[in-house]
């Protein structure tokens, strides 16, 4: 592991940084209960569409405060969501006391990473219900970051299995499996997604919906991959080292999974990391249509979906687009990471 990191750092520094950004994002998602100053569904009715709170070190008298503070704000025009700063200093405390929450659903805690005793701190502003976007981004990361990874691993498992078998054995098996793949590819992905979602009832619990979305997205994703893996296996199985492995009496199963599949990694690792964004976006598409993760549970997709098509929000509250920035960051980091991994997975590049 340490060796891989060193190689990554040496070969491709950008992907090394990307790896750490991804690790950091996952850390935020896991620790959301502790880091988020407010619960994801806590509504501050007095603060709808509140802009991001500025953190100050100097007060209005230009006096320096060692402890950063925020000013308390007040809604002055509910129609236009205009806020006024009240010159009352609310210092930010670390490990501040708050409502009781369970960290990771296991350890009850009343202390959180940061917060204020008076006033409110909305690092990324609030949405129209007055919910803190920063907290929701952290909780939403749990869904958006895991849906990509779980979905990708499911569909890659299917893709490798079916593509590998199909390519290696060829003949009739190949024919049957590839026709099956074509049936899946025949439907436009978007309608297939909707149709699959429509088969299931709407009143599912959010966890069931989550699982359902993962399964639907991977069912759509595996077909194209299986085809590509099949093509690669077809060419790799003619390589001489496969003949040598056969001559050494290595079992078919081992030949497929140890000799052929790893040799497709130069392509498939990049494909994996490039397709993770597709799952994040797929989830947001479903959410946008009201078929994905339901309010009040946040995902980056459904947080964004609120502002799409709402010009007033887009022009007056651009901070509502912050989840989009996180989607962008995740996608670009995964892409760079894929690039770097492809480089270091080939021993000739060491």
């Amino acid at each position, binding site marked *: 592991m340490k060796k891989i990191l060193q190689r990554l750092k040496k070969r491709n520094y950008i992907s090394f940084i990307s790896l750490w950004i991804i690790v950091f994002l996952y850390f935020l998602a896991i620790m959301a209960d502790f880091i988020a100053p407010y619960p994801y569904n806590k509504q501050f009715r007095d603060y709808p569409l509140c802009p991001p709170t500025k953190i100050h070190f100097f007060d209005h008298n230009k006096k320096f405060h060692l402890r950063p503070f925020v000013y308390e704000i007040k809604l002055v025009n509910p129609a236009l969501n205009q806020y006024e700063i009240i010159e009352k200093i609310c210092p930010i405390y670390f490990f501040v006391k708050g409502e009781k929450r369970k960290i990771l659903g296991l350890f009850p805690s009343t202390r959180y990473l940061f917060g204020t005793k008076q006033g409110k701190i909305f690092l990324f502003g609030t949405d129209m219900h007055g919910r803190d976007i920063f907290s929701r981004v952290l909780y939403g990361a749990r869904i958006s970051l895991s849906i990509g990874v779980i979905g990708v691993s499911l569909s890659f498992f299917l893709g490798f299995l079916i593509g590998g078998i199909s390519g290696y054995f060829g003949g009739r098996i190949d024919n049957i499996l590839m026709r099956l793949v074509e049936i899946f590819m025949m439907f436009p992905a978007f309608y297939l997604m909707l149709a699959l979602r429509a088969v299931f009832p709407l009143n599912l619990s959010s966890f069931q919906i989550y699982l359902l979305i993962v399964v639907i997205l991977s069912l759509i994703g595996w077909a194209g991959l299986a085809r590509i893996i099949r093509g690669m296996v077809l060419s790799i199985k003619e390589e*001489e*080292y496969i003949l040598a492995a056969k*001559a050494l009496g290595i079992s078919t199963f081992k030949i497929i999974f140890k000799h052929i599949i790893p040799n497709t990694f130069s392509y498939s690792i990049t494909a994996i990391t490039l397709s993770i964004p597709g799952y994040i976006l797929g989830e947001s598409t479903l959410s946008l249509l009201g078929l994905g993760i339901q309010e009040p549970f946040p995902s980056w997709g459904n947080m964004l979906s609120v502002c799409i098509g709402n010009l007033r929000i887009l022009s007056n509250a651009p901070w509502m687009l912050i989840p989009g920035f996180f989607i962008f960051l995740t996608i670009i980091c995964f892409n760079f990471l894929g690039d770097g991994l492809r480089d270091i997975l080939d021993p000739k590049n060491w």
Partner: protein
Amino acid sequence: MEKLLSVKKIVVGNQQVKILRDISFEVKEKEIVSIVGESGCGKSMTLRTIIKLLPKNLEILSGEIYFDRIEIRKYNEMEKIRGKEIGMVFQEPSSYLNPLFTIGNQIEESIKENISKKEKKEKIVNILKEIGLSPNVYYQYPHQLSGGMQQRAMIAMSLINKPKLLLADEPTTALDVTTAFGIINLLKNLISKYGLSIIFVTHDISLARYISDKIIVMYAGMILEKGNADLVYNKPLHPYTQKLITCLPEKYKKGEKIRTIEGEVPSFKNLPIGCPFSPRCEYRQKLCEEKIPEEIEVDNRIVRCIRYGNFMEN
């Protein structure tokens, strides 16, 4: 000495072409048998027939192969024999090693015994030393080794299970002369050490004489001459063998033009009806072009030529 492998009247091909015709030979214990011939005359296919790894469009049409009392043609569990009883070494070591795994990893995979990881590693390091490689090679990837080292690693891989028979498919062709002789001496030593037999495919007849007890001369999927190595080399009977030997550069003075065999190896789709060598043969008679000569024993060896015997019944 006991017979280890006996191949009897093997025909390999499909409906359109016959790649191997009427191949029969025997390999005794601790014996090196060389198969010699030009490119594309079915030497490698003979080896792949023995281990039943023929390309998909070819099959054994008739004949029998006995290995250690097992009828290979009807035997369905080849995975038990491959690697364990019969090892194989290939021509181009760099492309026969998986580029993604270390040598140790690849050798370990071919160990058939059920032993712990530590014992496996010990075993591999031992064989690497025996074969003339440093134990360090265990952690190295194929591209980090030279051609000769790669070939040694391949040999280590095919010998790790102590097979009875080693099939060597032109193992020295891709190497330079000094490394090639290193490999050949290694193979010779292994025979006494492991008590193994080798079928050695090469296109260099003088190398074949140097290494082996018996030489089989193949042409267009047929055995034209087989017998004791020195005998075949010093007193070749078949015109093709004679020509092969006159083509050797060491038989010529500097600057002298080397006489090659005129014409080309016939393609398998367009084989002559009679003796396969007849179009290029200077002793050819009318009958040669019509009938295939039978194998006959002359002068302690077997030859397939009209000059020494009769034609086969078509």
